[in-house]
């Protein structure tokens, strides 16, 4: 082979711009001699990623997905979601405390303890009244005295999930949004309910203005930043908070009861149809109606309708359930005996369930209906669990596919969650031990039982 001729100077450079001059890097080649592998292959490629655009980037690090270790070496991992997104839901029960304490509770039906999340350091709230799971967001509203704004808290489920599973439950809550309403230093503002309707939140706000002429209740549009009223009434001294719901026909309905100073109760049921509000007449025999719960039900024996529960008052409270269908209200349950109040109502499976109590006899019942037959005494919680005497804010909801009733167990007046144990829901029920708040001082009426 001839000797090369001496040459000086830089010859033509070898140039390889992978992704520009060629298709991209082709990965590692351990099979061929280092000099025989292709220009765009590697002799070694450890902890790299070869991208479709021809680049090679470094492999990332790792991050703990669980903070509690397993006892041994990991053996198997499986995702049981079958490709169904959960949007961060953790399917726990959430409820709010509405007495002198102002905490939010999260309970897992399978866990041994509940999680209390106090509003540490928050001066805006005393009582939580409205609890709503919006799918993407979890919202709850409270009341405000001598403040011109209502605190409405919105927290993403994922943030709650992470925080609720940490040991640091005291600092999880952050007032995310202050819901501003017109100034009135003399009134107490209450957030009665929050509903998402037509892409906007509707917030029911009540007030206690002790005789002034200020707005007594209102329903506001709220886009998460600014609020504007859509429905107002100047009757004063509201007794219950505006309750909002979307009915079976996709309309927004509002159940409101006021009682003017020195006067009798007055009831307002409003429907929002095609963007405007209109009054709905109460059925014959219902002189006043305080709405405490609204549920839509589409059972196998009846057409879809919306049911409003609460009580009428003709001198004493008497529980009733009204059916809202075809543009009119009719009475399907009650009026029950004096002192009875239907606290809440919800649909589960082929039945409609409703919680009612009698403050004079101590009875606390779960009623059931298929839409045709109404059995008020379907399950007697009082008979099984004892002296329930003052269900201030009872709730009934389906959480993790099981009916749950939130009521007081009478022993110190503390809140407890009860659930049926068999398909025949009139049989023995179980008490959720983790949600027996016997240790909580002062008794804790709860409301706003919701799953998220």
């Amino acid at each position, binding site marked *: *082979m001839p000797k*090369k001729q001496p040459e000086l*100077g830089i010859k033509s450079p*070898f140039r*390889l*711009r992978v992704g*520009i001059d060629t298709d991209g*890097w*082709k*990965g590692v080649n351990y099979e061929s001699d*280092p*000099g*025989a592998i292709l*220009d765009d292959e*590697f*002799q*070694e*490629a*450890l*902890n*790299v*990623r070869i991208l*479709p655009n*021809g*680049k*090679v*980037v*470094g492999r*990332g*690090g*790792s991050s*703990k*997905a*669980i903070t509690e*270790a*397993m*006892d*041994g*070496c*990991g*053996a*198997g*991992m499986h*995702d*049981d*979601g079958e490709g*169904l*997104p*959960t949007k961060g*839901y*953790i399917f726990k029960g959430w409820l709010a405390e509405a007495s002198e304490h102002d905490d939010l509770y999260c309970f897992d039906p399978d866990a041994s303890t509940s999680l209390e999340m106090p509003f540490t350091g928050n001066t805006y709230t005393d009582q939580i009244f409205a609890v709503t799971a919006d799918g993407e967001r979890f919202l709850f509203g409270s009341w405000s005295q001598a403040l011109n704004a209502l605190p409405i808290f919105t927290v993403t489920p994922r943030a709650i*999930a*992470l925080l609720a*599973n*940490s040991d640091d439950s005291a600092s999880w809550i952050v007032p995310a949004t202050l819901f501003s309403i017109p100034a009135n230093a003399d009134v107490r503002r209450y957030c009665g309910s929050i509903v998402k309707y037509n892409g906007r939140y509707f917030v029911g706000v009540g007030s206690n203005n002790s005789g002034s002429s200020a707005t007594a209740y209102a329903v506001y549009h709220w886009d998460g930043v600014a609020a504007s009223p859509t429905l107002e009434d100047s009757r004063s001294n509201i007794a219950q908070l505006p309750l909002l719901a979307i009915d079976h026909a996709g309309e927004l309905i509002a159940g409101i009861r006021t009682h003017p100073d020195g006067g009798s109760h007055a009831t307002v049921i409003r429907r929002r149809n095609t963007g405007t509000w209109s009054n709905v007449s109460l059925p014959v025999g219902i002189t006043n109606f305080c709405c405490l719960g609204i549920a839509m039900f589409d059972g196998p024996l009846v057409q879809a309708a919306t049911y409003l529960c609460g009580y009428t008052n003709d001198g004493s409270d008497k529980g009733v359930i009204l059916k809202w269908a075809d543009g009119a209200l009719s009475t399907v349950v009650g009026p029950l005996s004096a002192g009875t109040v239907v606290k809440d109502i919800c649909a589960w*499976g082929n039945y409609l369930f409703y919680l009612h109590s009698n403050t004079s006899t101590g009875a606390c019942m779960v009623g059931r209906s298929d839409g045709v037959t109404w059995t008020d005494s379907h399950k007697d919680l009082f008979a099984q669990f004892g002296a329930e005497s003052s269900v201030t804010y009872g709730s009934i909801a389906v959480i993790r*596919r099981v009916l749950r009733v939130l009521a007081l167990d009478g022993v110190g007046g503390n809140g407890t969650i009860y659930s049926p*144990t068999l*398909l025949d829901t009139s*049989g023995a029920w179980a008490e959720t031990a983790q949600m027996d708040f016997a240790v909580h001082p002062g008794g804790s009426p709860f409301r706003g039982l919701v799953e998220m």
Partner: protein
Amino acid sequence: MAWILTDDQGNVYRRDIGSLKRTKLTLPAGVYQRVPYCRPDFVTLNGATLIVGQFNVPLVHTVDRKLWKAGIEPGSTAPTIDPGSGTGITGSVQAKLTFAEIALDGRVIAESNPTDASFTISLVDQGVAYSELPTSHPNARVNYKRLYESRDGDAFLFVANVALADDTYSHNTPTNELSATSEVSTRRAVPPYMNKITKTNGRVWGNDGTKSIRYTEIDELESWAAVNEQFTKDREGVTCLKGLFNELFIGTRVSIQQLTGFGLSDFNVEFIRRGLGVISHHGAVSISNSLWFPSQEGYYRYAGGSVDFLMENLRTYFREAYEADETTYQDIVAVVDHRRHYVIVLVPGSEEQARVARYYAAAFLPTETALGGEGRAPYWSRDTSTRYERTIAALTDGDLLDRWYSADCGGYARLMDVNGTTDDGTAYDMEIGLKHYFMGSQGGDDGHARTFEDLEMFVKSESSAWTLEAFVGDDGASSALTADYGPKVVPASAGTMGGRAQVPKTRHSFPEIHRSGHGITPWITCTSPNGFELRGLEIYFSNDGDGNRGRTAA
């Protein structure tokens, strides 16, 4: 929805979506981890998850978020019936009962096979009274009995659910009110022991390592009738079982086969190839319309008729590695990342042998023509680990996004390939050895050497410093322990300077390299290579090399 995790001490855990904690689940009575240890396999069907292999019996994690023995054993005693009060039934009546777990919303989660039929009773406008019904069952999940009756010798149709604690039941349901679609099934046998399962066409398929392939009723995870059985064509033991588009892929040590058909009448097992086998069930993954599976010399792809070898550039490496550690390679686990079009294959670590985990990683987009690729070989690289990682999985976290997770002997499940700061401080050193570039003839004498005057590397690395070395000489130069040039540390080239945004530096010159040899191998290393990109290189050389390997030119 949750993750199901197991460890090698026989514990099972659930991790809720979004949670940072895990909950240890209680094993049912009589359940224990098999010896020797067997990697578990999982299938979720209609919300319940079957877990096989690791324990002495198959387990099921159901919507009640508890672990149970899979399947429900039938009762041994036929129900006792007598004429009862009421009216409405005329004719002969026989009864059977099953045991069941029924959710509170009415869904039957699992049901046993029926008992034998009761004695026949004859009724004349009467009711039926059941007595001495069983009130307990060894499987604690059972909460109901389900009663079935045959009227006048017809099929046994569902009558009622009776709570497990109740030992009597009476009814007078007329014959015409029994639903003809609720006939009792005798194909609900409990699942046998299996160490591999998969699902396709609404059924779950399983195998215990023998020639037998068992399968469920459609949409019934826990119903494994004894007659639901097929065998491998050559009666070899099954080493891999994976559901594909409309068929079941079956691997043995020496063959690959497929089962086609839609029911007992037309199920058929046939060969795809003989002389080519599968070494690991968990190492096989389905991508697009093909199945990638590990053989004794590397990965093959079965794509509905064609079989292609995917590891031409790693054939010897894989084969020798398998020969050196066959037990570990028969336990490799592969998962797919459909987002980034990557397959990653874990060679499990061993704490006992102080051997950390290793991986093969493949970018498969160029391979799969059904996904727009050109059918060429996948691009392989390898990963190293600092831990005894024992399993990996592609899981979601409340969304549809594929993420890789590993689980190690520290007991943690870890999200892999995290860019930026990781909360556990993990960093993996990247290493890229480019090929040995000859600038002249590699076969000549020293007169064919070149002098490398300048080396230009096109690298973008804004957050991590990196190091360049170069091996100069013939094609064996890069096997030297010490590089001929370098290491030269290149600082991260952040895109800001003096408060002004700058274009990141992507061209890095090494003009002082000035080494002579037949060729040159640039070698890059980087610790925590976040955002590192290798885009190319330029090599400037002159033909006046003096032929002395690695010597600085005069």
